[in-house]
């Protein structure tokens, strides 16, 4: 297993070019092309701004502008959920490669996670000017937690992606199931509401069990609120994510030989 894991590092050239291909191919043929990577988050931001400013205004103290607050969580969530749903189908849609070419299959879910990470980072270019404009982003050393948070999310997503990708080959239902689970998960995570609300705090234990809660809070603290008080949880999640990744890789490795036949 660890020999194969080392291979993953050897394949970085392949992963790199596949991620580039993924990003290039995604918007090929559209008029705006690569700009969609910016336009998409911008449109989402505008929709949320409209809804939460005019339709159902949220005037909570300390969460203003509300759309910007939500955006701090929505952006990483989009990365997370898109990664998982793409990774789940990645082995099936890449079936030709697995069956006809000697190809390291684990590259495919990794590419799904990394391509979406690039989109996430591009989305930040929309978010950060907004944060600066409203004086929410503080230029303090606490910002150093940001890359740590991204890294934790990367490892966490990659671990789940490996599990989902390998199981989906055998149980195609996962793809449909996953869409619904992700929807539920989204609302169960303090993204479009604040975890500081009283009625959220009442269920604190339940929220603490949700790994993405800690990621969302970390992002919100780093980008929106300022002081980072959640770093212990973040590091714990980081350690858990490494274990998850290893477990996911182990499962993937065990099922590897069945892919070429079952895809």
């Amino acid at each position, binding site marked *: 297993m660890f020999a194969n894991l080392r291979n993953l590092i050897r394949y970085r050239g*392949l992963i790199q070019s596949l991620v580039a291909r993924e990003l290039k191919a995604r918007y090929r*043929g559209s008029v705006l092309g690569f700009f969609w990577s910016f336009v998409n988050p911008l449109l989402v931001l505008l929709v949320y701004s409209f809804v939460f400013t005019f339709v159902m205004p949220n005037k909570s103290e300390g969460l203003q502008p509300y759309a910007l607050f939500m955006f701090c969580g929505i952006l990483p969530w989009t990365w997370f959920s898109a990664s998982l749903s793409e990774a789940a189908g990645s082995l099936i849609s890449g079936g*030709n*490669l697995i069956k*006809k*070419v000697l190809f390291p299959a684990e590259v495919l879910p990794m590419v799904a996670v990394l391509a979406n990470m690039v989109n996430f980072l591009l989305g930040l270019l929309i978010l950060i000017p907004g944060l600066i404009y409203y004086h929410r982003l503080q230029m303090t050393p606490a910002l150093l937690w940001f890359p740590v948070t991204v890294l934790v999310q990367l490892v966490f997503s990659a671990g789940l992606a490996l599990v989902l990708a390998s199981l989906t080959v055998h*149980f195609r239902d996962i793809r449909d199931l996953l869409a619904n689970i992700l929807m539920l998960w989204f609302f169960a995570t303090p993204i479009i509401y604040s975890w500081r609300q009283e009625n959220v705090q009442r269920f604190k234990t339940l929220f603490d069990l949700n790994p993405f809660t800690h990621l969302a809070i970390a992002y919100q603290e780093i980008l929106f609120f300022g002081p980072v008080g959640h770093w212990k949880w973040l590091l714990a999640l980081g350690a858990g994510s490494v274990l998850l990744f290893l477990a996911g890789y182990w499962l993937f490795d065990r099922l590897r030989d069945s892919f070429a036949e079952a895809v």
Partner: protein
Amino acid sequence: MNAIELMNVSKVYRRYSGRHFATLKSALLQRSVLRDLQPSETFPALTDVSFRVPKGSAFGVIGRNGSGKSTALKLVAGITKPTSGAVRVEGRVSALIELGAGFHPEISGRENVFINGIMLGLSKREVQDRFDEIVDFAELREFIDAPVKTYSSGMYVRLGFAVAIHVKPDVLLVDEVLAVGDEGFTHKCLDKFSEFRRRGKTILLVTHSLQLVETLCDEAVWLDGGRVQTNGDPKRVTGAYLTAVEQGEQTLMAETTAKAVEAEAKAVPAAADEPADMFKSTEGRWGSREVEISEVALLDRKGEASFVFHSGDPMTVRIKVRAHHPTDDFVFGIGLFNADGVCCYGTNTYVEEMKPERLSGDGEARFAVDSLDLVEGTYKLDVAVHKKDGFPYDYHRLLYTFRVKSRQRDVGIYRPHHRWTFSSGIQFKAS
């Protein structure tokens, strides 16, 4: 030194029958995840297969569809693992199994070449160095920046082939890819293979083209039903394979003929109800049966019943008859038709001016052809006994089928004995 070694390799494919409706939910509810992942049925694709391919040689794998050829290739490529036994391969392998398998339709040929090359194990730098060579080989210079989805299937395959071959593998695996692409490109591929061999690289070729195996390969193996039937000299192996194919056809034709004769024998022997159109080629049997054809057999050179003949072989039609009453008015006739229903030849004892004198009891007539000068194809035979005026005793219409095989790909029906001669200005390479 062997480049490829298969030692007692078996590959069992699992078939998950009944898994179509099994869902994750039911698997979890019934705690049958592990059980469902167990094979419910297995299918042996390869059984105890061993062969060696020496370094620098070309090795052919032949066999019918479903005989395990492609599985063997996938094992050598490392795409699947053997269930038991060992596969050992020396050096870098490139598999031409499905060309352009990794192409992404939306991006340009140029980008696909890079990604495909990297997938096949090259570094970016190596692809860069070989890029021009690849594009020239594929003859796609003017289209290289167009998205691959706009390519014709031929262009697609050419580019796939070009990338795969420029990986410069030590071992090249080829699975029936020469069937695609036009004549010119096929020749180019064959030239590339020859160049490969000159440089001491190894080729493993899976193909249905026996001619290719004979001309290109040093050795061959014939797989049937996942087992090695024979291996060694390609001429001998293809010969053995062809013989087996003929035997298979033989059995098939014997069955067809037996069925046709049986079906007609059951029909009530009505008197002389011959069909309105004698030239319409439908199978059937009619006649008064005063003289009955009890058996018809096609005999080969050795006098044994056969259904498959080679062009130029002798063939004898043996007709056994039984006359229920002695008669002096009888004609034996033979008609030969090709698969399109065209009459190739017809004759009878009357047109050949033989005067019938007496036919009684059991008898046997033989119609011997010294040399069956027909091109390859399936032929059918009319056999009849009738009166001089045409009144049928027993008419067997197209009931007997046989196959003529030929190594030559000539066309038409009749192959006259022939030879070519040329004046000194015209020369051919000695084959």
